[in-house]
């Protein structure tokens, strides 16, 4: 290596280090700030009390339950639809007009601002289908929002399954369907789970779309047909209505913890699932 190359190498290395450090600093700054401001707000009553408008301090239990509720219902709707759509696109669809239209649609859907989804949800699910402001309206709206992510990510992970596995299965007389369910899907499971985690992130963080669809009632939703305020929405309302900045930090802290827990749990489940599906561990 001559001197010019050497200094070039050095500069690039330094840049990479600096940018990595910047990313890390921002991450630490944000989480640190929330932890410092939010952690002191956490108390047993904060976590387990219901929300009383007249009270001095409010609990966030209803929002926590509603958030989990909304996540589950949304995933229940979007994950199966997304996986089957991805399977269709990768394994069955012949390249052509229809596929390119579907691709174009999913990519466009992914770029639409969430407030637009909210407006659509309000007009279609809440008014037209008369689902009212409810967990179901919210979940349906969010399902449309996360579907592109699930389809794209699942598609990519299906494509990474080696062709040799598929050929081996077909050559043994397995049908295409059996090959998909026994060979291709199990090997794509980590990609699919990544899609699910990304979706959870979007659901947890969503406010605009939910304001119009799942509503802001600060009570535990008794069924999917009831309105229920989620944590992000709660955070937004606490600040915009000037109720309590401290409680907002507390809520943000809990939100952060929930996201981390869900993340770790999914990774753990992915590992377990893969092991079970593939039998025995590679040494």
């Amino acid at each position, binding site marked *: 290596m001559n001197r010019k190359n050497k200094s070039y190498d050095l500069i690039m290395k330094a840049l990479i280090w600096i940018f990595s450090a910047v990313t890390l600093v921002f991450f630490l700054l944000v989480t640190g700030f929330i932890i410092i401001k939010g952690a002191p707000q956490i108390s047993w009553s904060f976590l387990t009390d219901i929300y009383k408008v007249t009270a001095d301090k409010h609990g966030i239990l209803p929002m926590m339950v509603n958030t989990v509720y909304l996540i589950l219902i949304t995933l229940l709707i979007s994950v199966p639809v997304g996986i089957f759509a991805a399977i269709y696109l990768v394994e069955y669809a012949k390249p052509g007009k229809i596929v390119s239209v579907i691709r174009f649609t999913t990519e466009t859907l992914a770029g639409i601002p969430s407030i637009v989804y909210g407006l659509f949800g309000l007009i279609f699910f809440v008014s037209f289908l008369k689902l009212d402001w409810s967990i179901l309206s919210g979940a349906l709206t969010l399902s449309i929002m996360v579907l592109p992510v699930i389809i794209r990510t699942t598609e990519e992970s299906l494509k990474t399954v080696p062709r040799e*596995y598929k050929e081996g299965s077909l050559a043994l007389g397995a049908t295409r369907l059996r090959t998909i369910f026994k060979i291709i899907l199990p090997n794509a499971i980590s990609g699919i789970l990544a899609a699910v985690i990304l979706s959870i992130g979007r659901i947890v963080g969503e406010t605009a779309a939910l304001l119009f669809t799942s509503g802001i009632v600060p009570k535990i939703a008794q069924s999917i047909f009831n309105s229920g305020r989620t944590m992000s929405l709660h955070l937004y309302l606490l600040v915009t209505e000037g109720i309590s900045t401290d409680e907002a930090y507390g809520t943000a802290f809990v939100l952060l913890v929930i996201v981390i827990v869900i993340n770790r749990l999914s990774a753990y489940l992915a590992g377990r699932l893969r092991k079970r599906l593939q*039998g*025995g561990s*590679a040494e």
Partner: protein
Amino acid sequence: MIKVRTKDLNLHYGDHHALKDISMDIEENKVTALIGPSGCGKSTFLKSLNRMNDLIPICRIEGLVTLDGVDIYKDVNVVELRKKIGMVFQKPNPFPMSIYDNITYGPKTHGIRKKSMLDEIVERSLRDAVLWDEVKDRLRKSALSLSGGQQQRLCIARTLSVEPEVMLMDEPTSALDPISTLKIEDLISELKKNYTIIIVTHNMQQAGRISDNTAFFLLGEVIEFGETENIFNVPTDKRTEDYITGRFG
């Protein structure tokens, strides 16, 4: 006895005429080697015998392929066909699951569920593929933990598990070391007592060692087809002679 017969088999990939008027009679319980330079249509021919080319949308096939006199493109369903005609691939491709599950995948596909029966199939298939002694204590371990040669024998065992009649092998030893290669060759000589074997190989010595009949492919045509000994010692076509003696290919 003729096991597999092709008559005027033509295959096109889009505009490319990949196989031209292939007519071959493949004898039962013999090893038939397909030789020829890369891209001459050997593998394509092999895949047309168990209809693996069906996967390729732009592939068009004309002519006749029969198994025991039955047209495999008209009168057989593809699941039954692939049960009768097994295939071993160039690169060992065990599924990323346990050794046991690799073997039982085929039988389960065809409806066998009983544990005792599956156990029996696993042992028989692995014994027939001369792998049993090496893996009997770790059947639940991942197949990917095996060496390349073992993996390929596992793939052969996996093919045997559904009791095929014909085995297609697409350069099964090209990714293996010499010792593993020899083991597979011994295995092939053993297997031909019970199975009809069609093997694509780039290795002339291998074709000479293990096959009874040899077909020489060139640019999508069969130039010469006959007993291996004759093809290698007294080839009738100049091109065959040139290829075998290493003048091209």
